[in-house]
Each structure stands twice: as C-alpha cells, then as structure tokens.
C-alpha cells in the first residue's frame, strides 16, 4: 500500500500544477482582458482547470501591478449578504475574480452586475457561457493530460497513459476525476 503522503496524485501535488494555455501566452491573455475592459469569463466544464486558471491569472495580474481580490463560491454554501456589501466597496481599479459564478441564483447574478456597475473589473469562472464575454474556454484534452501526467510521475509507462486516456473519455474531459481515479489505483 502507498501512503497518502507518497501518492503522486495527492491533492498537494495537483495544486502545484500550472494551467496549460492552449496556444496563447499569459501576456496575450492579459492583453485580451484589457481589450474586453476587464469584464470576462473563463468557461469550462467541471474539472477542466478553471480554478487553476483564475488562480494563476491572479498571480500574473498582481505581478503586472494590478490589485486583485478573489472570491470563491462553493456548491451548497449560501452566499452571505456581506459578500455583496464587500463587493460594492471594492475600488474600481481592483480586479475582482469570482470563481463559481454559475452557482449564483439568477437574481444574485443580476444583483452582482448591478453592484459592479460599468466601472468595476470583474472576471468570472463559470460552467456556462453567456454571463460575460468569454476570455478562454477551458477543456480537458489528451495532450494536456499527458503533459500533467509526465509532470506528476515523470516518463509515463504506456499502460498508465492508455488507462488515463480511457478515464478521460469516461469522465467526459473531467481531469479532476481522472486524477482521483489514478490516486485510488496508486494507493493499492
């Protein structure tokens, strides 16, 4: 049996993985954001790296001199009223990143749009398109999975690669679920 601390798919190791940008650089992403007036959405299905993307985007924006505030909404956890009050007091120059925006009830989403007005900068991560202009569409792909596997376990044996790609197909591109299954397979 492999101890949890030694498992290559343990969450602390997954958290260290960087987002793999599909043929675009971070500078280009930030330029695109400027072009969109800092109103944009990262769209993608469950487990495709949206949270990793916005976490890394926040770091890059801070390194470029922007002030960033990140908020994360969780499934089943009601949004406290103070959240909206805090949002309204954020300076216009600050970039607000809201992860899990699609978890908000429609009324709450419209209220947020009202609170941020025309001047505040807002980036959201969401499963569904259309809330704000799309900055990037996050997808789980075989290429990305191969790269991540090689970062986690080094040169990847053929049978593990094969199994992982099958898992990716079974989980409809949800790489988080693939890594959970690989964790279980490794733990024995």
């Amino acid at each position, binding site marked *: 049996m492999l101890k949890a601390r030694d*498992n290559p798919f343990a*969450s602390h190791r997954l958290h260290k993985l960087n987002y793999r940008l599909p043929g675009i650089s971070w500078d280009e992403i930030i330029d695109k954001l400027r072009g969109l007036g800092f109103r944009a959405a990262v769209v993608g299905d469950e487990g495709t790296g949206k949270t990793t993307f916005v976490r890394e985007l926040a770091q890059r924006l801070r390194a470029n001199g922007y002030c960033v505030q990140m908020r994360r909404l969780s499934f089943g956890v009601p949004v406290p009223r103070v959240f909206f009050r805090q949002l309204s007091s954020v300076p216009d120059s600050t970039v607000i990143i809201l992860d899990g925006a699609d978890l908000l009830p429609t009324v709450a989403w419209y209220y947020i749009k009202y609170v941020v007005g025309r001047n505040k900068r807002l980036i959201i991560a969401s499963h569904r398109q259309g809330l704000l202009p799309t900055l990037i569409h996050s997808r789980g792909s075989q290429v990305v999975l191969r790269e991540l596997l090689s970062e986690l376990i080094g040169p990847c044996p053929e049978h593990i690669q094969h199994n992982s790609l099958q898992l990716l197909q079974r989980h409809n591109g949800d790489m988080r679920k693939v890594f959970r299954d690989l964790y279980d397979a490794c733990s024995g």
Partner: protein
Amino acid sequence: MNELKVTLDRGELRPKEKISGKVSWRVSTPVRYIELRLFWYTIGKGSEDVGVVDTLRIEDVAQAGTRGFSFILPASPYSFSGRLISLVWAVEALVEPGRECQRAEFTFAPSGKEVLLYAQSQG
C-alpha cells in the same frame, strides 16, 4: 543567492516532549524578523487541513546567522498515514520581508514513529 535551512536535533518525537533545532539564513536584503512555526498538516486525496500549534519570532537579526529554537509539543494529533490521508508535522521558518520559507518534517507519536492506518501483511 538567499539561503534558509531548518535543522532538527531529532526526527522522532513523543507527546509533550521538547523539540529543538537550529535555523540558519543568509539573505541579500535586510531582515525584519524570522518566524518559526510548529504546525501539522494533512495531505492526501481530499482537501487539506492545517493547524499551527506555536510560533516563535526571532527579531533584531542580521542578514546572515544561525539561531537555536525550541518548542514544547502538545499531546496530539499524532503523525499517521493511511491510503486516503497522512498527517505530517513540521517546523517551518519564514524570513520577513520576503518569500523565503523552508521546513523540516518530523514524526510525532507515542512511539516516535508514524502510525500506519492499514493492516501490515504477515511475513
């Protein structure tokens, strides 16, 4: 180049014992203080948890030096490992201001060794 190192006198400790060691540093910018943290954290399949048990601040420090430190350990939680989760103890040093951070891990349990949460095969 910045250097920071935490060394523990012993790697296996028991509840209520004293843990001691040394922190050595050499950094290129002035140091306000060095903070040492005695803490545990969990790693594994799910979300992670952390508990800071004690902290110690070393102030009036030069840009390079070595200092000794000690903490008294609590009664629990013990270091353990299973398939889903491991609990790890460590002493971490952080140099302020800056991002330098280093840690040294140790095991903490009545036997001094990590508790294993699975049946070992009979030989």
